[in-house]
């Protein structure tokens, strides 16, 4: 072992306590990471090849072709970014501005509204270090970190002994899961701390908790045991430092954020509560912050190629732009929309000139006009990234690679346009 600590980019927890052993420019051992993190850092078994029109190509001709595609497009789409360093994201934003592109990321159809509300100071947030040292009531709402962020409970939210939580989970912390199914995380919280609610009932359940917190009888249309809601409200009221970890289950179930705003407002009237979005991809939040700094919007932007002005709105989201077939070329960076979007929406990508930049082969790459392999972030390339709680984390390069970083590739495409 090198005695040095590295960062895992397997999810937006960006665990920074990883030790590694290397052999032939590969990581032979990865210590302290979870299963998913080890697999991420060791790299995939089917790396992406550099190709143009399905034939092997050298990097120079791939970059020339990619630049030509973007230059000739009237309304290109640049999508991905969650698995790129902040430095690469900033170049990508510049590239979008130059080419009058739509630019978007996964937050557009997941945690976007929550991150946006946090950046606009509409929701009270804290860091994961605060959670580790202070949190005594932790609520996983529509979130299952045991599967999505495997070290969340052990590093921050439940098991560790923090400065003000020396007795850890045994005595000092209460973890609660609110979900539509008994997830792995719910099992850890045990039956008394698991609140199973019907599908799409999250907003109503929030209102019921607000009633409980206000000393009223909490009624629900699905007849949830009132005593249990009152118990929950009581635990929340007594919290010294409470945190709600917002998962995708909650985000997808809320049609608007108003019920969540109301709940947080009430909680902070009678108690002390914070909220952290359970961001998936390691630097999704970084993209949101970088685009926000440049345009005032976190995602769903279309640049005007002449004025450089940013237009924002649902019609500029990756999903609507593809559905409406308003894009005529696409550059995908560190993402696989043909896997991760509804196929009925993503299929249109196969009808237009498509460029993929990624360390690994994926479905979108198999349908791309140009594929350019890039160095794996946090292993073969360094940079900075923003953790789910907004803390900036430095990524170090561990081993050399023949591939350029996505930042270098994007810079070269930009120069060639």
């Amino acid at each position, binding site marked *: 072992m090198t005695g040095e600590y590295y960062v895992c980019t397997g999810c937006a927890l960006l665990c920074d306590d990883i030790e590694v052993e290397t052999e032939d420019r590969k990581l032979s051992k990865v210590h302290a990471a979870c299963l998913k993190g*080890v697999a991420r850092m060791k790299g995939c*078994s089917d790396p992406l090849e550099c190709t143009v029109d399905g034939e092997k190509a050298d990097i120079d001709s791939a970059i020339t072709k990619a630049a030509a595609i973007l230059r000739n497009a009237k309304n290109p789409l640049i999508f991905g970014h969650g698995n790129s360093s902040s430095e690469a994201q900033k170049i990508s934003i510049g590239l979008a501005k130059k080419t009058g592109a739509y630019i978007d990321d996964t937050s557009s159809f997941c945690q976007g509204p929550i991150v946006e509300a946090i950046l606009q100071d509409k929701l009270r947030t804290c860091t994961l270090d605060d959670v580790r040292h202070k949190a005594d009531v932790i609520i996983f709402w529509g979130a299952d970190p045991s599967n999505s962020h495997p070290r969340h409970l052990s590093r921050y939210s439940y098991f560790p002994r923090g400065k003000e939580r020396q007795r850890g989970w045994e005595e000092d912390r209460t973890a609660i899961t609110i979900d539509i*199914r008994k997830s792995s995380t719910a099992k850890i919280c045990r039956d008394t701390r698991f609140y199973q609610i019907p599908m799409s009932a999250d907003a109503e359940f929030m209102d019921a908790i607000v009633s409980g917190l206000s000393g009223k009888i909490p009624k629900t249309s699905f007849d949830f045991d009132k005593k249990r809601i009152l118990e929950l409200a009581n635990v929340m009221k007594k919290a010294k430092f409470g945190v709600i970890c917002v998962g995708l289950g909650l985000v*997808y179930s809320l049609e608007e954020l108003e019920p969540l705003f109301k709940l947080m407002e009430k909680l902070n009237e009678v108690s002390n509560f914070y909220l952290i979005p359970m961001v998936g991809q390691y630097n999704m939040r970084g993209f949101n912050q970088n685009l926000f700094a440049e345009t005032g919007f976190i995602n769903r932007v279309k640049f005007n190629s002449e004025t450089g002005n940013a237009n924002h709105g649902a019609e500029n989201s990756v999903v609507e732009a593809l559905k409406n077939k308003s894009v005529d070329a696409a550059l995908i960076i560190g993402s696989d929309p043909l*896997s991760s979007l509804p*196929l*009925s929406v993503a299929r249109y990508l196969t009808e237009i000139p498509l460029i993929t930049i990624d360390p690994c082969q994926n479905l979108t790459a198999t349908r791309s006009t140009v594929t350019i392999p890039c160095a794996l972030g946090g292993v073969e390339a360094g940079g900075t990234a923003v953790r789910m709680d907004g803390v900036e984390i430095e990524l170090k390069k561990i081993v050399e690679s023949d591939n350029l970083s996505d930042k270098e590739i994007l810079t070269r495409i930009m120069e060639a346009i």
Partner: protein
Amino acid sequence: MGFGQFLAAPEIKLKIVTYRDVFQNTAQESSRFGEEYEKLSAVIKLDLKDISKLTIKEGDTVIVKNGFGKVVVKAQKSGYEEAHPGIAYMVNSPWSNVLVPDETGGSGVPKFKNFEVTVQGAKGEKVTGIRAL
């Protein structure tokens, strides 16, 4: 050839809830085209009552379809203590995404986690491969 071959397999309507699984996610990091990723992704988890309605056994393949697409995946018991007839679970994957409706009401957000399908025994048909989706 059994007589069952000539009978239409019963078809039932179900709601699909998608979820994440760390083992499937790990397999994805290694290779999206690997056997392991298919084995852990191309699966539908059913309530015992729904399994018997479909007249299938655990491990049989089923056709899952709606107006947006069709996939053949393996049927498994969900293993949840509480019964959940009418609701089935699929891990978030390219297979579930074949079935996610494109309807968004202009919001830019598809209903990834909650949509309707019909399910029917596939009478031994093979699981849809990732490249055939």
